[in-house]
C-alpha cells in the first residue's frame, strides 16, 4: 500500500511537473530570445482552457475542441504580439511588467464578458475517463495520456531548439540579438514566432488541465506564479533549468501536501505545504542566486 501510494503520488508529481514545464519553458524562451518578461503568459493558459471548454460544449469532440482552441489561440497570440508585445522588446522591464499586467486585467475580464462569471466544466471523452492498471495501482487514463503528450512535446521542443535552423536562430538571438539582425536574421518574425509558440505551449497546458479543474477567470495567475518560481529555481533562459525546476517544484509541492501535515500537524502542515515551493526557492537563492542552471548576463 505504502509503495503503491508513493508511486501514485510520484506519477501525479511528474504530471504536474510536466504541465509546469510547458508553462515555464515559455517564460524562459520569451526572456531568452526577446528579453521579454511576460506576465500575461498565464492568460494563454486560461484562454486555452476556456476556448477548449467552449468548443467542446457545442461539438462534443475533444479533438475538434483541442485543434480549434489552438488555432484561435494562435490568432490571438499573433495579434497581441503585433499590437502590444513587439513595441515592448526594447523597453525596460518595468514597462513590460506593467503592459503585460494590463493584458491580464483585460483577459481576466474578457473571458467573463464572453462566457459568464460561472466556472465552466469540461467532460472527459469516454475512452479517456477510465483507469489503467499499473501493477497494483489503478491510475486515471487521462493523467497518463497528458503526461505522455507533455513528454512528446518536450522532446519535439528539444529537437526544434537543438537541431533545426530556426532553433539555431533562437539560440543565437538569445546570445546576441543585434548580431543576428546584422547577419540578416529577421528578429521581428522570429520574435513573433517564438511568442506564438510559447503561447501555444501555455494553451496546450491549459487545454490538458481543463478537464481536471474548474475553468475560471484568473486561473492563469496561480500557474503563472508557479512557473516563475520554476524559472527562478532553474535559471532564467535555460530550457534544462525549466525542466529540472518544474520537476523539483512539482515533487516538493505534491509530497509537501501529503507529508507536511502528517509531520507538523494539520494547522502548521497546511500552511507550510502552501509555502513549500517558495521556501525551496529561497533556499535555492541562498545557494545559487541565478538559479541552478542560470548564467550571469
Amino acid at each position: 500500500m505504502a509503495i503503491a501510494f508513493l508511486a501514485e503520488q510520484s506519477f501525479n508529481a511528474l504530471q504536474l511537473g510536466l504541465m509546469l514545464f510547458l508553462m515555464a519553458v515559455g517564460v524562459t524562451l520569451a526572456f531568452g530570445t526577446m528579453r521579454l518578461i511576460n506576465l500575461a503568459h498565464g492568460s494563454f493558459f486560461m484562454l486555452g482552457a476556456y476556448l477548449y471548454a467552449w468548443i467542446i460544449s457545442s461539438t462534443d469532440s475533444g479533438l475538434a475542441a483541442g485543434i480549434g482552441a489552438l488555432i484561435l489561440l494562435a490568432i490571438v497570440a499573433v495579434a497581441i504580439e503585433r499590437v502590444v508585445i513587439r513595441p515592448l522588446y526594447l523597453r525596460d522591464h518595468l514597462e513590460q511588467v506593467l503592459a503585460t499586467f494590463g493584458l491580464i486585467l483585460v483577459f481576466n475580464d474578457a473571458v467573463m464578458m464572453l462566457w459568464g462569471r460561472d466556472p465552466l466544466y469540461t467532460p472527459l471523452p469516454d475512452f479517456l475517463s477510465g483507469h489503467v492498471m499499473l501493477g497494483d495501482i489503478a491510475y486515471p487514463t487521462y493523467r497518463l495520456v497528458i503526461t505522455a503528450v507533455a513528454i512528446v512535446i518536450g522532446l519535439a521542443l528539444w529537437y526544434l531548439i537543438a537541431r533545426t535552423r530556426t532553433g539555431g536562430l533562437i539560440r543565437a538571438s538569445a546570445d546576441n540579438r543585434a548580431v543576428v539582425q546584422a547577419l540578416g536574421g529577421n528578429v521581428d518574425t522570429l520574435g513573433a514566432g517564438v511568442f506564438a509558440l510559447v503561447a501555444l505551449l501555455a494553451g496546450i497546458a491549459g487545454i490538458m488541465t481543463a478537464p481536471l479543474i474548474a475553468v475560471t477567470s484568473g486561473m492563469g495567475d496561480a500557474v503563472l506564479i508557479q512557473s516563475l518560481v520554476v524559472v527562478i529555481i532553474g535559471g532564467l533562459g535555460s530550457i534544462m533549468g525549466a525542466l529540472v525546476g518544474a520537476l523539483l517544484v512539482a515533487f516538493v509541492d505534491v509530497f509537501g501536501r501529503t507529508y507536511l501535515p502528517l509531520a507538523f500537524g494539520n494547522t502548521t502542515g497546511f500552511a507550510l505545504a502552501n509555502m513549500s515551493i517558495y521556501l525551496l526557492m529561497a533556499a535555492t537563492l541562498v545557494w545559487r542566486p541565478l538559479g541552478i542552471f542560470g548564467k550571469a548576463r
Partner: protein
Amino acid sequence: MTDTAFRNRVLIVLASAVLVAALVAFGDQTTLRFASRVAIYALAAVAVDIVLGYAGLVSMGHAAFFGLGAYVTGALALVGYKEALLAWPIAVLVATLAAFVIGALALRTSGVYFIMITLAFAQMFFYGANAVPGLGGADGFRLPGRSTVAGLSIDDPRIFFLLCVAILTAILLFSRRAAGAAFGSSLRAARDDEARAAASGIGAYWLRITAFTVSGAIAGLAGVLSANLTLYIAPSSTLSWHLSAEFLVMVILGMTGTLYGAVVGAALFLLLIEVVSHYTDYWAFYVGIAVIARVLLVHDGLLAKLQERLAL
C-alpha cells in the same frame, strides 16, 4: 530653484491644503472614505517609488508588506489589542522585518530576477495567509473595530481622513529629505552606475537593503491604515499580487522618482477605477486597456509635462 518654481510649489502646497480642508468641511461619509483610501494607497505608492525611483528596483512584492501590516493589525485587534500606539508599531515592525529578509535575498540578484523573486515571495505570504486558521483563511475576517490612538477614538471619518493625510505628509517630508541627503544621492549613484559608485566607496547592497526595508515599513504602515479603514481583511484584498502591480501602475501614472508623483498617480488610478466601475462591472477590462495605452503611448508620465510647464 527659481522664484517661479518656488512660487508654484507654494501654490501647490496651498491648493492641497485647501482640498483637504474642503473635504473635511463638506465631504460626506462616502467621499471621505474614498479620500482616505487615496491617501492610504498614495502612502503605499510612495513606498514603491522609494525603491523604484531612487534605487531603480522594480518590486512586484509590496503587497506582502501592505498585507502583513493589515494582518498583524487585525490579528492584534482580534485578541483585544486595539491601541494604535502599541499595535501599529508591532505591525510595522513585522512588515519591516519581512522587507529586510526578502530584500536581503532578492538583492543578491537584479533586473528580471528581482521582479520575479519579490513577486514570488509576496505570493508565499498570500498562500500562507490562506492557510492560517483563525484568520478566516481565503474568506478573510472582520475586525472588531478601529484602533484607538492613545485611548481616543478615530471612528469619525473626518478624523480618520486627517490622520491618514497627516501620516502621508510626514512620510513624504521624511522621504524627500532622505532623498535629498547623502543617502538618496548615493542610492541614485549606485542605480546609475554601480561600478563607478563602488569606486567612490558606495556599497550598493546595504544601501539598497536599507531603502527596501524602509519602503517595506511604509507599505506596512499603509496596510495598518487600510485595515482600519475597511475593517475587513482578506488575502485577495491585501496580499494579492495584483495589488503590487497596481502600486507600480500608480507610480508611473504620476511620475517616478519624485514621491509626490506617486500621490498624484494613486489619486488618478483610484478615480479612474471609481468612474469606470460606475458604468460597468467589467471595469478591470477598461483599466487594463488604459494601463497598456499608458505604457505604449506616453513616455514620461502625466506629471512630467506638467512639471516642465510649472518649472518645478
